[in-house]
C-alpha cells in the first residue's frame, strides 16, 4: 500500500469520525447494552437481573410447550418473522414501481423547478406519521371515502373490508416509505446526463434496451440506497401494523415491543433484536455485493 493511500485513509477516517462518534453515543453504544441484556435473566416484573445465561437465546429458536413441557421449534417466532420479511419485500417492490417513474419525472423537470417538486413529495410527510396513518384509515374504512365512492359508482355492492387486513398494512407502509425510495433515486437520476440516453438510443434498437443498458447502471446506487431505506425500516415497523392492520397479526417490531412491554421479558426482546440485526446485516452485505457490483462495501 502506497504512502498516498495511507494518507487518504487517515483523511477518510477523520471525516467519518464525527458521524461515528454520534452513532456510538446514540445507537451503537446502546446496542452493546442490549447485547449484554440478551444474556441475562428476566427481572421480576420487567428489567433484567443476574445470573448471566443463554436462556433467552434458546427461547428465540426453541419454546418449551407450556402444556406438555416438550421442547419444540419456535414456529410462532418464525411465522412472525416471515410475515415481516414478506410484507417488507412487497413494500420495497411497490415503492420501487411507483417511485422510479416519480423520481424520473422530478429529475427531468427544468432545473429550477426540481426543488419545488421535491418539496411537494415531502410536504405530506411533514404531518405526523400517526395522523397520516389515521387519515389513511379514514379513507379505507368500511364507511370511509373509498367505499362510499365505489358504492356510489356501483363498482361494488357491499363495502370492501380493506381496513385491518395485510392489504391495509401494505398500503400504509408503501405510503409511509415512498419518499425513502424516491429521494435517493432522484439524487442518482438527477446526475444522469440525458444526452447519453439519446446517444444510446441511436445505438440500441429500442428505448427499453437503452434504459436497461445506459440508465440502470447509473441509477443503481440510488435504487440500492432507496430499497435499503424502505426494506430495513419496514421490517421493524410498529405503528402501521397496529393502526391499519388492526393489531391482529404481529410483525417482528410489535413482537419485540411485546417483550419489552406487557410480556416483561427484556432478555428475549434483546436477543430477538440482536438476531434481527445480524440477519439484516448479512442480507444487506449480500444484497450490496450482488446489486452494487464488486467494490461497493468491501475494504
Amino acid at each position, binding site marked *: 500500500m502506497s504512502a498516498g493511500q495511507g494518507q487518504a485513509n487517515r483523511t477518510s477516517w477523520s471525516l467519518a469520525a464525527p458521524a461515528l462518534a454520534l452513532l456510538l453515543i446514540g445507537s451503537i453504544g446502546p446496542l452493546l447494552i442490549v447485547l449484554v441484556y440478551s444474556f441475562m435473566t428476566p427481572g421480576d416484573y420487567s428489567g433484567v437481573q443476574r445470573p448471566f445465561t443463554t436462556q433467552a437465546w434458546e427461547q428465540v429458536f426453541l419454546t418449551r410447550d407450556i402444556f406438555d413441557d416438550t421442547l419444540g421449534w419456535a414456529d410462532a417466532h418464525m411465522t412472525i418473522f416471515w410475515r415481516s420479511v414478506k410484507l417488507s419485500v412487497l413494500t420495497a417492490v411497490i415503492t420501487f414501481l411507483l417511485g422510479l417513474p416519480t423520481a424520473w419525472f422530478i429529475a427531468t423537470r427544468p432545473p429550477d423547478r426540481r426543488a419545488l417538486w421535491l418539496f411537494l413529495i415531502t410536504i405530506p410527510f411533514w404531518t405526523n406519521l400517526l395522523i397520516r396513518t389515521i387519515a389513511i384509515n379514514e379513507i379505507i374504512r368500511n364507511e370511509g371515502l373509498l367505499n362510499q365512492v365505489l358504492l356510489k359508482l356501483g363498482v361494488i355492492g357491499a363495502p370492501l373490508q380493506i381496513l385491518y387486513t395485510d392489504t391495509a398494512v401494505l398500503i400504509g407502509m408503501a405510503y409511509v416509505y415512498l419518499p425513502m425510495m424516491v429521494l435517493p433515486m432522484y439524487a442518482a437520476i438527477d446526475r444522469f446526463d440525458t444526452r447519453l440516453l439519446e446517444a444510446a438510443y441511436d445505438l440500441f434498437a429500442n428505448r427499453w434496451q437503452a434504459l436497461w443498458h445506459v440508465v440502470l447502471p447509473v441509477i443503481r446506487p440510488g435504487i440500492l440506497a432507496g430499497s435499503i431505506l424502505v426494506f430495513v425500516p419496514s421490517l421493524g415497523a410498529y405503528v402501521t401494523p397496529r393502526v391499519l392492520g*388492526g393489531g*391482529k397479526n*404481529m410483525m417482528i417490531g410489535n413482537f419485540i415491543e411485546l417483550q419489552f412491554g406487557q410480556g416483561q*421479558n427484556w432478555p428475549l426482546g434483546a436477543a430477538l433484536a440482536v438476531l434481527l440485526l445480524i440477519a439484516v446485516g448479512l442480507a444487506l452485505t449480500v444484497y450490496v455485493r450482488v446489486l452494487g457490483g464488486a467494490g461497493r462495501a468491501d475494504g
Partner: protein
Amino acid sequence: MKTTAILAIGISALALPALAEGQLNLYNWGDYTSPEMIKKFEDQTGIDVTITDYDSNDTSMAKVSAGGHGFDLIVPSHNYLQIFVQKGLLAELDHARLKNFGNIDPKWVDVPWDQGRTHSIPWLWGTVGMGVNTDTYDGDPNTSAIFLDPPEELVGKVNVAPEMTDIMHLTTMYLGGEPCTEDKEMLKKVRDKLVEAKPKWMSMDYGMSDKMGSGDVKASEYWSGAIMRARLQNPAVVYGYPKEGYPLFMDSIALLHDAQNVDEAYQFLDFIMDPENAAMNSDYTKYPNGIAGSEEFFSDEMRAAPEMVVPEEHLANGKWMPLCSPTARDYMTAIWTELQK
C-alpha cells in the same frame, strides 16, 4: 440567515430550564387530566404544573426505574402500583400532610393492593366490559360471550382491546377459572377458546369511542368510560358488565421516591381529594373517581350513566385482578404470542 435562526432556537432549546419555585411535574396517562382542574390548581397555588404523558404502565415503570426523569407524581394502575412499591420507586405518604385524606370513600381506602393507602390516592377508576351497538345485536350485552362466542350478528364486527392481561383475565373467568392461574388444563382451555374466537374478530385496536360512535365497529371489549363517550355520540351503544366476572381497575396517584417538588406534590394530592376538584376530572374523562361526595358535582348525565354507576345486580361480578406471578405472566405471554402470530 436561516441557519442562524435554527442555531439560535437550538441553543435556547439546549439551555437548562429554569428551576423556578413552585413547579410540579406530573407523569400521567395521556388525556387523563382535566385541564380546567389543573388551571384551577395553578391559579389557587401559583404552582406551575407540567404534565408529561405515557401510554403504558410498562413504559412509565421502565422510565421511573431508570431514574433521572424529573417527575414528581405518577398514576400507575392498581396492579402495577404493587410492583412500583416492591421496587422501591414510591415514597410512603405522610397522611398528616393531607388534610383531605378523610374524603376518600371508605371502600377505596383499604384496597387489597394498597392497604390503608400508604402509597397512593385514588385518581380514577372504571371497569372492563362490553360495548355493544344494539342496532346490530339487541341480545344480552352482559357477557364475555360478546367477544369469545360472538352471536352471529356480531361475527367479524367485534373489536378486542390489545391488552394482554385484561383479555386473559376475562377469558379465564368466562371459562370458570381464577385470574393469574397456573393450572395447565385451564390455560389450555383459555388458549383454545381465544384461538377459536380470533377469526371472528374484526380488529384488536384502541380508539373505540370514535369507532363505535361512528358505527365502524359494532361491539368491543373495552373500558367503561370510552364506551360512555361512544354512547354520547351514538345512543344505540350500550355497556355490558360480563356476568362471568369482569375486571375493576383503579389508577392511583403516587409520589415518586426521587421527587424534587415534594411540598408542591402534597398540595396537589390534597387538592384532588376535594370532591369538587375530583368531579372536574371525572367530568373530563367520564370515569368515577373514588372521592366521597364528588357525585354532587356531577352533571345529571353522569349521575345517571350506567357506565359510571355500576348497577346493583352487576356489582358482585366486578373483581380486582391480582398481580400475576412471573410464571403466570410467562404463560400469558406464550398464549398471547400464539394468538397474534
